[in-house]
C-alpha cells in the first residue's frame, strides 16, 4: 500500500495485468510513442503520460502504437478479442468516439447477441472524459450516457485512484466489452492504493459516506464534488449518504433503492449534458421502483444543455460544483414532505 496518483493506479493496473496474462495487449495513438522517430522510444505514454513505461517493459509487440485511425484500430481490437487476445485500446478522448462508434456499438457490443452467444469479446476501451481542463467543446465531453444506452457494453467510471486500479483490473479480466472512463483532471489525484493487484466487481455501488437525510448519487469526478457538498451540509446539520455507482452499466440500482428507502430523498449529480443522461436514468428507475419511499422530488445536478465552453469563466459555470450541489440538497430538504401511500 502506498500513495499513488490516478495516473499511476491506471498504469500499474495495466502493467500487472500484462505481466499476469500474455494475451493482454495495448494499442492506441502514442500509447508508447516515438514510432519511427529519431529520438526516444516510449516517448509519450499517451498525451498525459498514463501508459508511460509500458512499451519499454513489454515491447512493441504488446504495446502497439497506431496511426490516427480509430475505426481501424478499435475495430482491430474488437476482432482480436474475438480471436484470443484481450486488447486494451485507448480512445484518447471520448470526444473522438464519433469517428469509430460503429466498431464499438454495432460490432463489439453486438457480436455476442448477433452470434447467438457463440462468441465473446473481451475488449477494454480506455478513454478520457470530462470538463475542467480548458480543452473546449471537442475535448471535454462525458458521453458515457451514450455508451450506457447501448446493450452489450459495460461502462465503468472510477472516482478515485483506488477505484481506478481495482476496476481496471476487473475490466481487463472481464469477458465483455468494457468502456473505461478516466477523468482528465483527476490524473494527479492521490490516495493509498494497494501494490498488489485486486479487483472491484462491476455493479456494486460504493457507499462513500452514509447519512440519514438525503442520498446523493454521483458519477465519476462528481463523487468528489458531492463529498465536498456533503461536508459543507454536515456543518448545517444535513446528513448525506454519498453513493458512487462505479459502473453505470451494469447499474447497482438495488443499493440506490435501499438508500432512498432510508433517506426518502435523492439528488443525482452527473457531469454529462442533462438530456437522457445517467441522472435521468437513475431518477426514472427509482421513481418506478421506490416511489412510495420518496419524501421529496428527486433533483438532478447537471450542466446545461450546451457544448462545453472554452473560456475558464464559462467552463467553471458549466460544471456542477459543490456549492450548486449543496444548494440543491438544501432545496430538497426544504420541500414539503409527502406522506406514505394511502
Amino acid at each position: 500500500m502506498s500513495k499513488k496518483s490516478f495516473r499511476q493506479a491506471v498504469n500499474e493496473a495495466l502493467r500487472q495485468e500484462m505481466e499476469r496474462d500474455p494475451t493482454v495487449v495495448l494499442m492506441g495513438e502514442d500509447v508508447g510513442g516515438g514510432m519511427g522517430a529519431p529520438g526516444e522510444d516510449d516517448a509519450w505514454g499517451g498525451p498525459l503520460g498514463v501508459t508511460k513505461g509500458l512499451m519499454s517493459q513489454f515491447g512493441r509487440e504488446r504495446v502497439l502504437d497506431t496511426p490516427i485511425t480509430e475505426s481501424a484500430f478499435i475495430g482491430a481490437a474488437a476482432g482480436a478479442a474475438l480471436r484470443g487476445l484481450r486488447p486494451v485500446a485507448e480512445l484518447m478522448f471520448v470526444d473522438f468516439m464519433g469517428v469509430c462508434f460503429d466498431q464499438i456499438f454495432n460490432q463489439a457490443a453486438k457480436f455476442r447477441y448477433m452470434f447467438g452467444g457463440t462468441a465473446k469479446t473481451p475488449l477494454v476501451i480506455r478513454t478520457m472524459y470530462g470538463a475542467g481542463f480548458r480543452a473546449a467543446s471537442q475535448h471535454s465531453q462525458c458521453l458515457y450516457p451514450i455508451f450506457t444506452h447501448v446493450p452489450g457494453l459495460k461502462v465503468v467510471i472510477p472516482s478515485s485512484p483506488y477505484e481506478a486500479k481495482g476496476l481496471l483490473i476487473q475490466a481487463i479480466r472481464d469477458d465483455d466489452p468494457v468502456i473505461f472512463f478516466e477523468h482528465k483532471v483527476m490524473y494527479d489525484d492521490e490516495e493509498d492504493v494497494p501494490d498488489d493487484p485486486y479487483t472491484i466487481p462491476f455493479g456494486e455501488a460504493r457507499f462513500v459516506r452514509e447519512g440519514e437525510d438525503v442520498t446523493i448519487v454521483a458519477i465519476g469526478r462528481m463523487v468528489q464534488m458531492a463529498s465536498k457538498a456533503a461536508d459543507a451540509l454536515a456543518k448545517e446539520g444535513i446528513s448525506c449518504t454519498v453513493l458512487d455507482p462505479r459502473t453505470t452499466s451494469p447499474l447497482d440500482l438495488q443499493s440506490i433503492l435501499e438508500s432512498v428507502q432510508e433517506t426518502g430523498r435523492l439528488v443525482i449529480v452527473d457531469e454529462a449534458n442533462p438530456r437522457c443522461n445517467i441522472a435521468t436514468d437513475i431518477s426514472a428507475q427509482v421513481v418506478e421502483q421506490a416511489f412510495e419511499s420518496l419524501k421529496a422530488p428527486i433533483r438532478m445536478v447537471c450542466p446545461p444543455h450546451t457544448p462545453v465552453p472554452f473560456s475558464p469563466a464559462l467552463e467553471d459555470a458549466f460544471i456542477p460544483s459543490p456549492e450548486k450541489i449543496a444548494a440543491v440538497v438544501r432545496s430538497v430538504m426544504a420541500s414539503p414532505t409527502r406522506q406514505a401511500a394511502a
Partner: protein
Amino acid sequence: MEPSRALQLNREELLRAYRQMRTIREFEERVHTEFSSGAIPGFVHLYAGEEAVAVGVCMHLTERDCIASTHRGHGHCIAKGCDVKGMMAEIFGRADGLCGGKGGSMHIADVAKGMLGANGIVGGGAPLACGAALAAKTLKTGGVAVAFGGDGASNQGTTAESMNLATVWKLPVIFVLEDNGYAESTASSWSIGGDAVKRAEGFGMPGVRVDGHDFFAVYEAMHDPIARARAGEGPSFLHVKVNRYYGHFEGDAQTYRAPGEVQRLRAEMDCIERFRKRVTEAKVLEEKDLAAIDREVLELIEESVRAAKAAAYPPPPALLSDVYVSYP
C-alpha cells in the same frame, strides 16, 4: 494467363471447390424462391454469380485463418465451412440456426471456424480482419485473415484506414474487393473515383486485378498474397471483377441494369459453367462426378429448407440471453 498452380489442385480439391460453388448457388437460388414465397423475413442479399470469388479465396484457408464478410455473406460462410443447415435455419429465424435465430442473414457467424460474421455495416469488416490478423500474429498461430468488401465498401473510410493499419503493422491480411459492378443501384465505375489497385499501392501493398468469374484465376491470384501474409511480409490487395445475378436485396426491381444484362451474364460468364468446362475439357474431372455433386447438393439444400421450416422459433427467454457473458 495459364493458372498453373490452380491446375495443380488435386482431384479431391477440385471436387471440393465445385461442391462449394454449387452449394452456394443452390443455397441462393433456393433462398430467392423461399423469399419470394414469403417464407423468409427481412433483408436478404444474394451472392449467386460470385461463387468463384469466395471459393477461390477460401480454398487457401484453414480454420486457423479468418474471414470478415459483408451483408452479402452466404457465399463466404459456405466457403469458410459454416454448416449449411445451420445457416438456412438462421435465415429462417429458427432456434437451431447458427446464431440461434438472433442474427439472421446479415449476421451469420462461426467465430470458431474463423468466420467473423456477415456484417450489416458496409465497410464494417475490414478492421475486424485486421484484428484477427493481429491475434494470429501475436499468438503466432500462422493464421491469416481475409477482409471481403464490395465496390461500395471500398470507398468507406474504414477500408482505407484498415489498409493503412495493415501496412504499418505488417499484418497478414488480404483485402478482397468484390466489385460486382454495383452498390445498390450505383455503378462502381462511378463511385470509385480513381483506381482501386492504385489506391492499394498508395497504401503500401501490392494489388492485382482478377476476373472473378474464373475460379482458377482467383485461386491463382491469391497465391502470392497468401504466401506473403504467411511469411510475415504484410498485406495484399485483390480487385475482383464479378457480377451478381440478383438484385441488391430481394425485392429490388433492378431498373438500373441494362435490359437482358443478367441473362447475358448467366449465359456467358457463369463461374460454375466455366469451371465445369475447364475441368472436363482438361479431363481432370468427369461430368458424372459433377452431376453426382449436383444431386447431393440439391438434396442438402432441400433438406436444409425442410428442416428449417420444421424447426422451432427461439423460446421467449432467448430475447434476454447472450447480451453479456455476465451481467449482475
